[in-house]
Structure formats: C-alpha cells, structure tokens
C-alpha cells in the first residue's frame, strides 16, 4: 500500500500531456492524430461507401466498422509481426461499440463507414487513444454524430485511484520496489460527453465495487480534458484557409 507519488509526478486525475490534430491524411474523408504521453494514434475515415459482402448490408442504416492496428515497431519490446491478431480484433470490436451510440448512419442504407486506426508508438492506453482519435476523424468527415466520444483508462495502482495509467503504472510491481505484491486494475472507459454515459468499459485486474465506482467518477471528470482538446483541434481545422 505504498504507491504514494505517481512515477511522472502527475496528480491523480491528471492526464499525460496530449496533442491532437485533425486532417492529417488528405486522402481520407476525415482523419485525426491523437497523442497522450508516448501513446500515439492516427485515425482515418473512409466512406460512406458500398458494403461488401452484400449479406452484411442493412437497408435501414449504414454500418460503422473500426480497424485497430499497432505498427510493427510500435511495441516496447520485439518487433510485432504485421497483420491482425485476436487482441486487435477484439479492440476493433469494442471501439466500434464505443462509437456507435453517437454515430447516426440512418442516411446511408447498405453503406459502410470504415475507421482505420494505426499506432506508430505505444505506452499504455492505446484503445482509448484510438477511440478519441476515431471520434475526431468521424466528426471531421462530416458523419452525422450526436456528440463526441472521449476515452481514457482509469484504475487503481496499488492503493491509489488514478486516471490515464502509464505502462510503468500498469506494471507497478516491477517498477516500485514497495509495491511488489500490489494489484493493479486497468479500466479503459469512454463516455458520451454531454450525458457522461459510458460506451466502453473493460477491466483487467482486481478492484472492489466502491473503488471501481470512484475510478469511473474520476474518469468522467478527467475526460473533460480530452473533450476540450478534441473540440479545439476540430475548430482549428475549420478556421484555417
């Protein structure tokens, strides 16, 4: 019970330094770059366009389809073999579910909107950065949306409830000699900004119900920092030229 000061000196609800920019891929209908600490996600939106195979088509509305991929050199260890894997497939699925509640594709029957996210470098919180980037890219592409989705991980590191865990915090038993037997819970979450409703919720680790709810409340509050940055980046892209 001795993780007192965060490794990088942040306050409990303080996120790592962030940078956001939209319009980074001219070929795409919409695109965005989102950096948080040393995690970097680039998102591109293509479509709406015809969806194949045909049996996937929905005559009532278009389909949102996310893709998630770490670049081969983006892991902190050995090279990652390119191509999809089970982890990437699951993340793509939860990303789609996290964004769907605010995306209205009823004007695009039988069509698909593809969202591709690539990560050139990572240091924890990749799915959250991917979702925050994807939401901005969808907005820039002019896809009808009710709100922005913002995403960050929260969790309990040893005794401390914090927002935006770094890799060292996820592995606190390795980096803090006094936390050798500590447990860490890592809870990626995403919210609809106006209602604070949760659209992504996963967890690794162990936590009590009370601590979980405090962590989620902390996340709802901390995510305003992401939301403000997303809005700023989008506005900047419309004023220039």
């Amino acid at each position, binding site marked *: 019970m001795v993780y007192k000061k965060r490794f990088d000196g942040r306050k409990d609800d303080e996120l790592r330094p962030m940078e956001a920019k939209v319009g980074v*891929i001219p070929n795409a209908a919409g695109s965005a770059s989102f950096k948080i600490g040393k995690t970097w996600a680039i998102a591109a939106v293509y479509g709406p366009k015809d969806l194949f195979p045909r049996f996937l088509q929905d005559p009532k509305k278009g389909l949102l389809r996310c*893709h998630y991929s770490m670049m*081969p*050199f983006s892991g902190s260890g050995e090279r990652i073999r390119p191509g999809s894997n089970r982890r990437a497939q699951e993340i793509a699925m939860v990303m789609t579910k996290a964004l769907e509640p605010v995306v209205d594709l009823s004007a695009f029957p039988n069509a698909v909107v593809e969202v591709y996210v690539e990560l*050139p*470098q990572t240091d924890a919180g990749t799915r959250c950065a991917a979702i925050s980037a994807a939401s901005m890219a969808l907005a820039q592409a002019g896809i009808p949306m009710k709100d922005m989705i913002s995403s960050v991980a929260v969790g309990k590191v040893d005794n401390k409830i914090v927002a935006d865990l770094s890799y060292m915090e996820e592995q606190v038993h390795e980096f803090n000699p006094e936390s050798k037997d500590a447990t860490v819970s890592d809870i990626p979450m995403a919210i609809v900004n106006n209602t604070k409703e949760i659209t992504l919720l996963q967890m690794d680790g162990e936590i009590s119900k009370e601590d979980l709810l405090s962590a989620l409340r902390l996340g709802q509050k901390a995510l305003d920092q992401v939301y403000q940055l997303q809005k700023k980046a989008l506005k900047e892209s419309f004023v220039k030229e």
Partner: protein
Amino acid sequence: MIANKETIIQLAGEGKRLDGRALTEYRQPISAELGISWTAEGSARVQVGETVVMAGVKLSIEKPYNDTPDEGGIMVNAELLPLSSSEYESGPPGIKAVELARVVDRGIREAKAINMKKLCRIPGEKAWFVTIDIITINDAGNLFDVAGLAALAALKSAKLPVVDEATGAIDYKTKTTVSLPLMKEPLGVTVYKINGRFIVDPTIEEEKSYEARLTVASDSNGIISALQKGGEAPLKLDDVAEMIDLALEKSNFLRKELNKQLK
C-alpha cells in the same frame, strides 16, 4: 479520371504537367522527421508533396545464416495501409507492397549500405538483424522514392539497444549511442515514361498514365545498386541511358534534401 489520363499524356508530350511542375521537378515540401517512434530503434516520417510514409527500424539478435556466419542481416517489409488510400484493403501484403519492399531492400542490401560484418557479435552464433517496416500514411503518388527516403532516414536515426552481456537479453527500453554501421546512402529514383517523355515524382493520376517506369537506386558516387523496370511498354537502350542519367542526378538531389533536413 479517363479525361485526366488523356490530358496527362497529351501534356507530357508538350513537356507540361497537370500541376504545373517541370517534368523532372519533385513536389514540395520535401521533409523528414527522425525519431517519431520511441519504441523503434530508428524511425522517420518523410513527406514529399502530400505523400507521407513512416519507416521504423527494429533490431533483434539472431543466429547468422549458414553461408554468412560472420554477418548480420536486413529485411524490408512494406504495408500499404487502407488508412492511407481508398485503393488499399486490409489483409496480407499484395504484389504492390511486395514489390515496393523488395525494391527498397535491394537498393540498400546490394549497395552494401550496412556493413553486415560489423553487425556480427559472435560468429556463427549471434548477430544483429535489422528489420525495416515501411508504412504508408497518405499515398499521393511516388511511393517507391518516398519509401526509400523514409527507410534511409530511419536507418540513419537508429541506435542499438542495450544488451545484457550475462543473459544476452536485449533491453529495448534503453538505447546506446551506437549507430548502425551505415557506409553509404543509396536512394532510389523512379523515372516514368509518358508519351515519350521522362518524368519523376508522379502524382496518383500520373501513375495511372505511364507506359514504362524504371527505379534506379544509386549512391553518392553514382554507383547503381538496384534496378526495377515496370509498366507495359518496352524500353530502348537509349531510353534506359537517359532514365539513368536523370535518376542519378535526382538521387543526389534527394540525398541533399534529406541531409539538409537532418541537421
């Protein structure tokens, strides 16, 4: 786009291009940013016009090949991401990605740009292997040249990671100050033949309008280390000579532009 293609061909005949450039003029900006990925041993983002390519170098320690027991190795892989163009789809690399990777690979490998012997740690047992991943971010044409620039820039920025001498394990999180043994700086230039004229640095539309292309990788001494002819039309020997002259000149131009950026 069909009208466009005819226009491009007709304009080329008059020595003109759709975007107003001279036939042998590269787009601007030409920019390179090194160390864009902390997780890679070397990395770069290179932009020419609106074409953006990232390259990352990962190093590993492997057993040398049996026929070269005192040498390390290199491997180049290219990913044409669906993120970078509506023309690319998810899935294993297609022939376009394979050709791109292999042309860049040969340019570096055959020039002996990396001193493979210096990559060896214990002959017959352990040597550094260099993997270069080329990733397209926005394909607005001329991936061959831009990918080659990105690969070279990433190699120039690479630093060996710390190796635990007792266990032989690589500590990827800690880099030494030791660079790769880079002996030369080969760069490829692809010359396109359209309507009897030669152009460099094509846009996507120009890439759909060419008769033949020739990629020439060369170093600062004008030594050629790789060739790749593409396209449907055959080339006369005089064409080849003229294309090589242009490629050698532009290779030096690109090397200067790159090194200007890296200072």
